[in-house]
């Protein structure tokens, strides 16, 4: 399950992410996908996904962005 989640994120990063065409849309460092990847590695699928989801919700026009590690 954990492996599947991590593979899916890797697939997104390689083939779907807008960063591939040079558009960097994330306000945070590390970016939302890297953050979620690390969170799943650290806390497991359930808690990691929740943490990742919360991060994506925070990544909106009204937040400040910046450095925000797992």
């Amino acid at each position: 399950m954990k492996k599947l989640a991590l593979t899916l994120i890797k697939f997104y990063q390689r083939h779907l992410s807008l960063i591939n065409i040079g558009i960097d849309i994330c306000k945070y460092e590390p970016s939302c996908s890297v953050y979620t990847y690390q969170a799943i590695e650290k806390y497991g699928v359930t808690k990691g996904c929740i943490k990742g989801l919360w991060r994506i919700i925070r990544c909106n026009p009204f937040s400040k962005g910046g450095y925000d590690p797992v």
Partner: protein
Amino acid sequence: MGTLWNLIIYNPILNILVSLYQLTSNLGISIIVFTVLVRVAMIPVMAPAMKMRKKQQELKPKLDKIKEKYKDDKMKLAEKQMDLMKQNGVNPSAGCLTSIIMIVVMIAVYRAVSSLTNGIALEEINNRIYLDTFKFTDNYSINKNFLYLDLSKPDPYYVVTGIAVIVQFLTGMMMLPYVEEEEKKAEKTPSEMDDMAASIQKQNIFMTPIMFLIFGMTLPSGVMIYIVVSTLAQLAQSYHYTGWGGLTPWIKRLKFGNVKS
């Protein structure tokens, strides 16, 4: 979840498309106008990210310097990077949530276009239309002819498909950053990470047109017209913010050829 999706996203979008059709009674024209409208509505979201891309390319030497200086203090690094962006008048991008919402809207747009071309029961569409004047009457059949096309079937002559493939390829090329020949030589060996990102980017330039070719052979041509107009809009947007990009050498060659003759 399904009802929420219909209520907030799908129904409003379908209403706009059906209203356009009822006003023009030409499905092809309504799809084109509709796509342009959607793209215009998305400009405020896309513009900051596109501007940022251009600035990032310009500021790359400065950014590299900062990276070198604050290698060990990531907190400080992110802060300094933002300061540099702000000083140069770049607004931070709209963020990941906004782009996810945009993708969801694009799925709804796609579904609205394909539901009109795929010959879904008109009653089902009628149920979603807010204004009675825009509802379809009984026994009505949507006029699906546009130029030589039957919008509910794939393009038999592959003209629309061909245009989609070419336009998508050109857009992909434009998205690549343009590096002057001399600069290329002078540049130090890029880090492994940069190299990988660049190779994936190059790979995508060929992947997406191939995908469009397959779409063109299977999807209704109405949907393909939507894809073509949408890609054209992206191309125009990309030209406006970052110029010809990776296409620059080709454009130069074209002009040079003219001068020579």
